[in-house]
């Protein structure tokens, strides 16, 4: 049994099965909480704790999944390229909105967490939370945060968007489709985007666009922003 639990393939197959179950639940129930990533993380974290398997064993088995984050990030250029035509006449709202978003997302997260008693390491860790996971992980390493914790916080921000973004945007009186998409992609990256694609085609497209551009803008601005918001 311990041989089986230590085998890398066990955890790769378990991850794929848990993800598939998550996809099935999403498609069957349509409930916003039934996100495949949430189902996968909850099931595998529970399995590791219950079976007393350490994370290093799990991480070794799922190296190939984590490796694919690189080419997946590169692949974001494809949806970005498809939407370039929709940008005509929308450059100012797009650029201004996303730049304001990057500063507010990074600044408010860093200041709030320090105000509530967190240390400098925690402030660096929360800084890239609004970007898509592959970028958040890479950026967290670059600015010396705790990368897996950044990913977890970012994923939580993504799930928050998938569950609540459309309702909150209506409450904030943001009704223009492009603006709704941009706002969601800017704070909830790919997970928020997957929800917006179900809401409205334009919202989905602009959410994906915002995810890519926010990742890009945050990557460029983060080294300059982080020192500004450390107390």
């Amino acid at each position, binding site marked *: 049994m311990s041989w089986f639990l230590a085998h890398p393939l066990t955890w790769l197959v378990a991850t794929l099965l848990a*993800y598939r179950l998550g996809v099935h639940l999403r498609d069957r129930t349509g409930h916003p909480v039934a996100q495949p990533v949430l189902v*996968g993380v909850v099931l595998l974290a529970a399995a590791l704790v219950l079976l007393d398997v350490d994370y290093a064993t799990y991480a070794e088995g799922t190296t190939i999944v984590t490796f694919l984050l690189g080419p997946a990030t*590169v692949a974001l250029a494809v949806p970005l390229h498809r939407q370039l035509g929709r940008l005509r006449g929308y450059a100012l709202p797009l650029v201004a909105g996303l730049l304001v978003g990057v500063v507010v997302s990074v600044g408010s997260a860093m200041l709030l967490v320090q105000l*509530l008693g967190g240390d400098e390491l925690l402030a660096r860790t929360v800084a890239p*939370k609004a970007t898509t996971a592959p970028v958040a992980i890479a950026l967290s390493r670059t600015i010396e945060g705790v990368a897996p914790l950044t990913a*977890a916080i970012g994923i939580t921000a993504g799930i928050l968007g998938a569950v609540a973004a459309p309702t909150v945007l209506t409450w904030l009186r*943001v009704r223009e489709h492009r603006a709704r998409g*941009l706002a969601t992609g800017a704070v909830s990256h790919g997970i928020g985007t997957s929800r917006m694609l179900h809401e409205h085609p334009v919202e989905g497209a602009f959410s994906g666009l915002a995810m890519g551009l926010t*990742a890009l803008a945050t990557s460029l601005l983060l080294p300059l922003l982080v020192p500004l918001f450390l107390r």
Partner: protein
Amino acid sequence: MRVVSGLTWLLGCQLVGEVVVHALDAPVPGPVVGMVVLLLVLLVRRPPEGSSVHQAADALLPHLQLLFVPAGVGVVVYGAVLRQDGPAIVVALVVSWLLGLAAVGWTAQLLTRERAR
């Protein structure tokens, strides 16, 4: 072969990105530079919709959530940190998420209205 061809484009662009980051000592992750490299390739080469690189991206991106799972499970390892700083992280996360959403939504919508007038 199309799968291999598409993956080669993605990994090739990532490699170019890694080389650029290494050469310039840039504070940007290699895959992000790779994204810009692929965007330039798409603009210059104009591959038709359904090309191998489109297929690879369309195969990979719908399952982006799967790729987040191992990192998410990493929360288990940092459970101790979370327990100590948990409330600070949760409050900062939710409030910052809300502020960011409002900032982007309001800014973009306001500027669209201004220009429409």
